[in-house]
């Protein structure tokens, strides 16, 4: 027994056998194996564990599967590693915050420094120094500070670590043990420390250097010139033609934050109830969308100018005036545009997601059932039933699936192990009786990959995710424990997805995966007992699934307790429920869009009233009433199209993100769909309502007498 093993309880062999649930004739002997010290690398826990597993596997092979190899030290290592990992993360966060603070401190110090010496830089510029030379001067200073600071920091760290912290830690660790513990500083840590310190200083020096780089000599020399330029810059920011960058970054911030929430959806689904999930989902998606529409609103002048350029091809004056007026009255336009974009984006997002989820639900149903018809057998049926079903006119193929065997699978020493269900299938008929086109099998394309299960009676098909978790590849051996007996089986197939069964490509979902074996292997494992759980039936193209299901029911339903389910029926039910939800959403959101468009046109009407004087000028220089109305209609349409396009793009971004995030952890992929019919209806709705409403609303103000219209301007 190892000397360093503490708290040992001595007991009789019989007591131990009883505790372990062993019979009298079974041995409960243990063999302790002490490995050489060079196996253990305390700086590389994972590598050490891998080595232990490999040694353990070798031992297992030598002693056979009647004995268990347990990696006691490996388990300890694993626990320590997990605990160290969380501490390491905490320490890294602490280091990150410290480095960030140091960076901010250096930036502010450098800024103060360059501000104090701003005249000096002005003189240098007036003497003929180029911008980049001034930039380099400031940057070199920060590099020197970085070098000096990093070296000093390292020395302080080494001294503090070796002379103060290490003795304290060693004293605490050796309090309860006689072992000699040494703590050493990893040289890589020193290199990283130096590099990070140096890079932070350079990064922090860039901003002050860039600030100085941008100053003109007169700005550097005169404080009043700097103030004037500052005022000019602020005034420029007020110009309606400028992109509102502060708004843009705010939108981006909301978008980024909410994107993080979307990534955390699975976690929320795990911990919270349905009401919270729905609330969080709606809030997050809504804010995610709002984040993007805010970004689009910020760049409204750019969007309007682009569209106006397009419109100018057909109506130069109307397009040009519309764009300019939209930008001039930006304060009013901005809110309308935001409302319009957001409501359009919402309706598209709901439409697209509902359609995607509807398709996904269909796929899920196909994966769930696996074939056109599933016959669940509630009592044993003779094998001849299969050929009777196949004989029904219109049946393409029928295949039986056995009742599952619950087995423990793992690597050779069961270092990692999972309890999964194993099904027996008829390898010959299986392929043609399931939705094979939906399957994802890591297997060279051949006529029937499932025949690989019949290579020998020890072949098994497992999920790709399970193989990854157990670090196995095709043709490797997997340890299977069934009815308390262990045996090694050959991994003949890796399957990522297969209808009718739960296969996965994700390592994290390995525990919920299933496995397939041939009927012969199944019989071997069950000592000849073959029990069918269900029969999958595929129908020939052009034949009515429901009537074949009825024929099956008539054929065997009277004699046996069975349940016949058709995939088509389930899909239709799902489709109906989705289309009801979709219709409800669409109706609600269509009202939203109409209200937004009317809001937009009403704000346009206010603008028209304010611009009666302008109408007077147009009319006095020979612009006809129709042309003036057209100017306002084009204005309304440009804003509506801008809202439509930006809304569509916003929803596409969100839907793509949701689809991508969903597919990161989903075996049945969510297919991104763009509801073209919905897009066309909304386009017609938005453009139609804008054009008609703006025509109606502007017709009356336009009919005002020219002289009165011009006087209106004087009153204003």
């Amino acid at each position: 027994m190892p000397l360093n093993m503490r708290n040992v309880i001595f007991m009789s062999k019989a007591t131990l056998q009883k505790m372990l649930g062993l019979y009298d004739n079974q041995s409960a002997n243990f063999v302790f194996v002490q490995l050489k010290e060079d196996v253990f690398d305390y700086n590389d826990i994972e590598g050490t564990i891998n080595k232990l597993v490999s040694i353990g596997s070798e031992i297992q092979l030598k002693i056979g599967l009647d004995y268990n190899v347990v990696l006691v030290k490996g388990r300890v290592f694993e626990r320590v590693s997990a605990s160290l990992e969380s501490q390491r993360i905490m320490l890294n966060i602490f280091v990150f915050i410290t480095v960030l603070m140091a960076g901010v401190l250096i930036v502010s110090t450098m800024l103060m420094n360059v501000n104090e010496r701003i005249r000096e830089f002005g003189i240098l510029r007036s003497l003929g120094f180029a911008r980049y030379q001034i930039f380099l001067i400031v940057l070199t200073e920060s590099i020197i500070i970085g070098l000096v600071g990093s070296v000093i920091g390292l020395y302080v760290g080494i001294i503090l670590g070796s002379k103060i912290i290490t003795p304290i830690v060693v004293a605490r660790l050796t309090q309860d043990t006689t072992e000699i513990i040494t703590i050493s500083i990893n040289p890589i840590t020193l290199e990283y420390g130096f590099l990070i310190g140096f890079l932070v200083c350079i990064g922090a020096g860039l901003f002050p250097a860039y600030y100085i780089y941008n100053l003109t000599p007169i700005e550097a020399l005169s404080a009043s010139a700097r103030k004037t330029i500052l005022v000019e810059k602020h005034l420029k920011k007020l110009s309606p033609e400028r992109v509102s960058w502060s708004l843009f970054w705010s939108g981006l911030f909301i978008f980024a934050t909410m994107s993080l929430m979307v990534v955390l959806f699975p976690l929320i689904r795990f911990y919270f109830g349905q009401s919270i999930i729905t609330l969080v989902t709606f809030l997050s998606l809504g804010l995610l969308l709002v984040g993007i529409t805010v970004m689009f609103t910020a760049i409204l002048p750019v969007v309007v100018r682009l569209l106006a350029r397009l419109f100018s091809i057909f109506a130069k004056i109307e397009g040009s005036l519309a764009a300019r007026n939209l930008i001039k009255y930006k304060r009013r336009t901005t809110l309308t545009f935001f409302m319009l974009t957001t409501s359009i984006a919402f309706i598209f997002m709901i439409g697209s997601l509902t359609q995607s989820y509807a398709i996904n639900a269909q796929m899920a149903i196909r994966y769930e059932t696996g074939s056109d018809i599933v016959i669940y057998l509630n009592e044993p049926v003779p094998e001849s039933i299969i050929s009777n079903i196949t004989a029904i006119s219109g049946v393409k193929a029928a295949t039986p699936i056995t009742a599952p065997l619950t087995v423990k699978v793992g690597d050779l020493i069961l270092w990692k192990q999972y309890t999964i269900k194993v099904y027996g299938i008829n390898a010959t008929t299986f392929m043609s009786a399931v939705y094979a086109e939906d399957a994802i099998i890591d297997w060279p394309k051949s006529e029937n990959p499932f025949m690989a299960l019949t290579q020998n009676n020890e072949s098994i098909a497992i999920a790709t995710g399970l193989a990854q978790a157990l670090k196995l590849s095709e043709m490797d051996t997997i340890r299977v424990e069934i009815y308390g007996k262990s045996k090694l089986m050959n991994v003949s197939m890796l399957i990522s997805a297969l209808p009718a069964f739960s296969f996965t490509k994700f390592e994290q979902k390995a525990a919920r995966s299933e496995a397939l074996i041939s009927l012969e292997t199944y019989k071997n494992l069950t000592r000849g007992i073959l029990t069918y759980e269900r029969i999958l039936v595929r129908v020939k193209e052009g034949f009515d699934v429901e009537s074949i299901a009825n024929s099956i029911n008539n054929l065997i339903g009277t004699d046996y307790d069975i349940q016949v389910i058709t995939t088509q029926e389930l899909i239709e039910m799902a489709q109906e429920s989705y289309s009801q939800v979709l219709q409800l959403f669409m109706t609600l959101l269509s009202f939203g869009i109409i209200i937004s468009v009317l809001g937009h046109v009403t704000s346009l009407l206010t603008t028209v009233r304010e611009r009666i004087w302008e109408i007077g000028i147009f009319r006095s220089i020979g612009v006809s009433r129709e042309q003036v109305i057209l100017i306002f209609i084009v204005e309304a349409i440009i804003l509506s199209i801008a809202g439509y396009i930006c809304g569509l793009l916003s929803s596409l971004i969100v839907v793509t993100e949701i689809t991508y995030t969903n597919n990161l952890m989903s075996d049945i992929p969510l297919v991104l769909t763009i509801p073209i019919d919905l897009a066309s209806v909304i386009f017609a709705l938005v453009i139609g309502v804008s054009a008609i409403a703006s025509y109606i609303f502007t017709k009356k103000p336009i009919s005002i007498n020219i002289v009165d219209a011009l006087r209106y301007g004087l009153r204003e």
Partner: protein
Amino acid sequence: MEKQESVRTEELVKIYRLGKVEIQALRGVSISCIRGEVVAVVGPSGSGKTTLLNLIGTLDKPTSGRVFIDGQEVTKLPEKELTKLRRKKIGFVFQFFNLIPVLTAFENVELPLLIAGVPKEEREKRARELLELVGLADRMNHKPDELSGGEQQRVAIARALANKPSLLLADEPTGDLDSETGMKVVTLMRDMVKHEHATAIMVTHDMEVAKIADRILKMRDGKIVGEEKMTN
């Protein structure tokens, strides 16, 4: 060269109704202007100068009487025809410039040409030419609020002459300018009108400004009360 009649009014009467009160702005005004002539209409406030100008410019309709432009009676023309007439034959210069604020000087001058369907190249050439003539070649891309009052009025003159109208109507063109700038502007306007061989009717209450015209019509209480020929 035979003197061609450009504008003629016959017994123009304009009555405004403010509720039950009737205000007779014009009481039978008959005038006639020949091509190339610059006519100034002077008189105190409320004498009917601007009303006369608005009726000649087809911006308003008379209660009775007739207006002829280039021999064609315009009083009874439908709205569509009047729009065409304003587009092709009449140019306006207002007291407060009345430029489109969102368009640049160049675009303001280009606007009437665009509406008249003038091809792009010709349009741009004409706008540039006019702005050069009014001395704003270097201010073409500035918006009205970036120009001084005098500059804005020069843009307005260039815009009024863009479609080579036969008639230029100016309502107090110097009203919002200082006297020196005002004189410069009206002198420029007269020169431009002569250059384009158009007729100009200018309403003003400033006698100094009126003196640059070929003829001065004096109004009082909605009637022409006197006429003075100038020898410029």
